[in-house]
């Protein structure tokens, strides 16, 4: 029964997307809303049904596999269109459909003035379908199919306002980087097929030992899979597309680039933990990359002036936490943070959306201020989200971030390094998030005031933000250290085959709680001192540490490096091919052939000069020639 419902969960958004995409003309707004939001909402309800069914079963009885039909049968293995419904995948499904539903409701009002209302919901539905396929897939093949479709949907939605050149460029950039990840993922799948003989999850994970503990093959597979994860989850060095992806509408940023798509990399690692634990070196590399990304992104976020870019870099940073945790082996901690992050990041983005909508598409912090007076709901949402992300005790990330950090302390020297980086990152996170809050919502009106008072939002936008705000506050209590562990218990059946499960020590827990609380409160205090206490102070301090800040401003020049390394040579190659290779090669072949034919024809046509006498001469000459030949033949014969 559960799997039947799972198929419907997959089918509903797909149908919604197809119906909306192929609708002739423009349907009435109400119809678009009904189809677009309705499909996701129904899927969420079905997911809840599956969830409660699972809760009713014993923990070992919560995994269901269903194959719809056999796709290919090669050698001894077969590839089925199959879904795997287990605690991990249903957790992701609930996030995708639940948060997705709230965001769809939000966009009903946010996109109200847009001409392409129907196209928006069609593409959003298709995205949800792709993401669901990705998490529900029962084998690597359909994972990759969902992976690729998600990349496509991301491209479509980033470039939604396709008349803007910047949006189109950002969409292209995202797509190209995603494809690089796809290549890594596909190569990893090839290796898995070759080494383990199957692409099916359950079979592959059972045979994961065949890769050889800490062997080169295991390292290669893990790193290739990680390339895919890094591209999708925007980790170094494939992170530069995420900030640019803010060109898309805010609901898109909330759904795709905060709550779901970018977490696909984390899901991948957790899903394939059986493979990842075959190579400790790979895990360490992944964790270090996650840690570095976390820190780098946090510093860059400090400098951003565009409200959405702050949130984008913040996403990169938070996913760094998750990747770091997953790399070290803290799988359920990483998933815990993923869940929390979905709530508070979506909340933050939607609140930012209210602000942008109210200020008529103004996104720069320089022209915001004192919004708590005008936009109550946005203030509530933003406030809740900032407290959550900063790790304020009692809120969401306080529990989840600490879970990752405490668990990593138990993971050896690399873990300790990650812990230190994580704590520093937490401090910076608090600073930049509250910088955002104080500059936008506190302080005086911006210079020149507001052209017209920002108008508050309708209930379509307010309700989702409020719900998410509340979730940012209370959801963390699902797993409390020294208390109960809801997430760990839930994911236990999936993680049963983890060889050396990491358990944070008591000392580690207290250490983490102490330092992270200090970091959070210290960060908030610094932000208050810099931005709230005296709004002019930041301008006075503008020239402090100019050099490093410039570097951070340019996101450490990753974009420029890529431009020099890849884009320019690529362009050069294209020019060379166009100017030199093509005329000589294919085009030259064709023009050469025609030239030869033309010149030959010209030579031959010279004999047609229109003069009667030359024609007569030709006849005579031919006759003479024939005579000579005949004479020779006759002479030879006789």
């Amino acid at each position, binding site marked *: 029964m559960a799997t039947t419902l799972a198929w419907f969960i997959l089918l509903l958004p797909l149908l919604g997307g197809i119906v909306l995409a192929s609708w002739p003309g423009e349907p009435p707004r109400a119809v678009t809303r009904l189809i677009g939001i309705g499909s996701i909402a129904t899927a969420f309800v079905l997911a809840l049904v599956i969830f409660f069914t699972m809760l009713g079963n014993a923990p070992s009885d919560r995994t269901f596999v269903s194959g719809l039909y056999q796709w290919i049968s090669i050698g001894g293995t077969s590839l089925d269109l199959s879904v795997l419904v287990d605690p991990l995948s249903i957790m992701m499904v609930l996030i995708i459909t639940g948060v997705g539903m709230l965001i769809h409701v939000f966009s009903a009002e946010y996109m109200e003035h847009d001409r392409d209302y129907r196209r928006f919901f069609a593409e959003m539905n298709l995205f949800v379908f792709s993401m669901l396929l990705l998490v529900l897939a029962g084998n690597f093949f359909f994972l990759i199919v969902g992976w690729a479709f998600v990349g496509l949907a991301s491209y479509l939605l980033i470039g939604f306002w396709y008349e803007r050149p910047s949006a189109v460029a950002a969409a292209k950039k995202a797509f190209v980087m995603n494809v690089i990840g796809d290549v890594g993922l596909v190569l990893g799948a090839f290796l898995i097929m070759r080494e383990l003989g199957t692409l099916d999850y359950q079979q592959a994970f059972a045979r994961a030992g065949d890769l050889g503990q800490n062997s080169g093959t295991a390292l290669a597979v893990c790193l290739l899979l990680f390339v895919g994860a890094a591209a999708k989850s925007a980790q170094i060095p494939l992170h530069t597309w995420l900030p640019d992806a803010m060109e898309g509408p805010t609901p898109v940023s909330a759904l795709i680039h905060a709550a779901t798509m970018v977490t696909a990399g984390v899901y991948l690692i957790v899903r394939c933990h059986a493979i990842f634990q075959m190579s400790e070196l790979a895990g360490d590399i992944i964790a270090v990359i996650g840690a570095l990304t976390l820190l780098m992104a946090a510093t860059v976020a400090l400098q951003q002036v565009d409200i959405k870019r702050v949130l984008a870099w913040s996403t990169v940073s938070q996913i760094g936490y998750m990747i770091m945790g997953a790399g070290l082996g803290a799988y359920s901690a990483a998933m815990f943070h993923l869940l929390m992050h979905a709530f508070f990041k979506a909340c933050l983005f939607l609140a930012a959306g209210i602000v942008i909508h109210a200020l008529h598409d103004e996104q720069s912090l320089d022209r915001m201020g004192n919004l708590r007076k005008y936009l109550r709901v946005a203030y509530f949402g933003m406030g809740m989200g900032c407290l959550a992300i900063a790790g304020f005790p009692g809120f969401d990330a306080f529990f989840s971030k600490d879970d990752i950090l405490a668990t990593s302390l138990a993971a050896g020297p690399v873990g300790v390094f990650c812990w230190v980086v994580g704590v520093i990152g937490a401090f910076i996170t608090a600073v930049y998030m509250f910088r955002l809050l104080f500059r936008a919502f506190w302080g005086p009106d911006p210079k020149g005031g507001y052209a017209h008072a920002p108008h508050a939002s309708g209930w379509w936008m307010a309700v989702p933000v409020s719900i998410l705000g509340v979730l940012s506050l209370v959801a963390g209590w699902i797993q409390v250290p020294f208390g109960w562990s809801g997430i760990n218990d839930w994911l236990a059946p999936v993680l049963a085959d983890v060889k050396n499960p990491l358990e944070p020590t008591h000392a580690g827990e207290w250490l983490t709680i102490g330092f992270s609380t200090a970091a959070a409160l210290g960060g908030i205090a610094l932000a208050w001192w810099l931005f709230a206490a005296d709004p002019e102070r930041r301008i006075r301090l503008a020239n402090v540490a100019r050099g490093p800040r410039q570097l951070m401003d340019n996101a450490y020049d990753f974009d420029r490096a890529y431009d020099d390394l890849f884009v320019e040579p690529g362009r050069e190659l294209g020019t060379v091919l166009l100017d030199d290779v093509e005329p000589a090669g294919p085009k030259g072949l064709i023009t050469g052939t025609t030239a030869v034919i033309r010149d030959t024809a010209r030579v031959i046509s010279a004999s047609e*000069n229109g*003069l009667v*006498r*030359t024609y007569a*001469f030709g006849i*005579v*000459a031919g*006759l*003479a*020639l*024939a*005579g*000579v030949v*005949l*004479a020779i033949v*006759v002479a030879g014969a006789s």
Partner: protein
Amino acid sequence: MAEQVTFAIAAIGALGFGIGVVFFRDAFRAAVSLIGTLLAVALLFIVLEAPFVAALQVIVYAGAIVVMFLFVIAYLGDRPIVPGTDRMDAVQPVAWIALAGVAAFGAITVLASAIGPEHSVSDTNVGSPASIGHAFLNQHIIAFEVTSLIMLIAAVGAVILAKRAVMLEGGR
């Protein structure tokens, strides 16, 4: 004996007048040379016991065709040809060689091939009008009809061309 002498005279005459046709500058003289050739050939026909054909040769060829030529020569006048603009100048020597080749080819063919026994007894009826008439209407009736068709076509063509010429002149 008489035959051989007549042949020799006629042959030399034909070739001589032929040279005249080819080499005379003046169109009138060339046309008159052609008459000479034609008469020589007619003589040959008589020697070859084909009197009917010989008569027709003189009447039709020399009497009608060449007269037409002379009319046109008189009508169009003898306009001088600009010397030095001969397009065939470059290939003149090749042309001579080619012609020599053709001549050699013909000679060799003629001499090398054994053309049957020579009939000493000839049927003088072969060349008579009756014989030719019989042959035309019995064996070669199609050639007969087609030939008359050709003459008709030529006549129609000539009329059309004449009309054209008149229209170009400004008449109707």
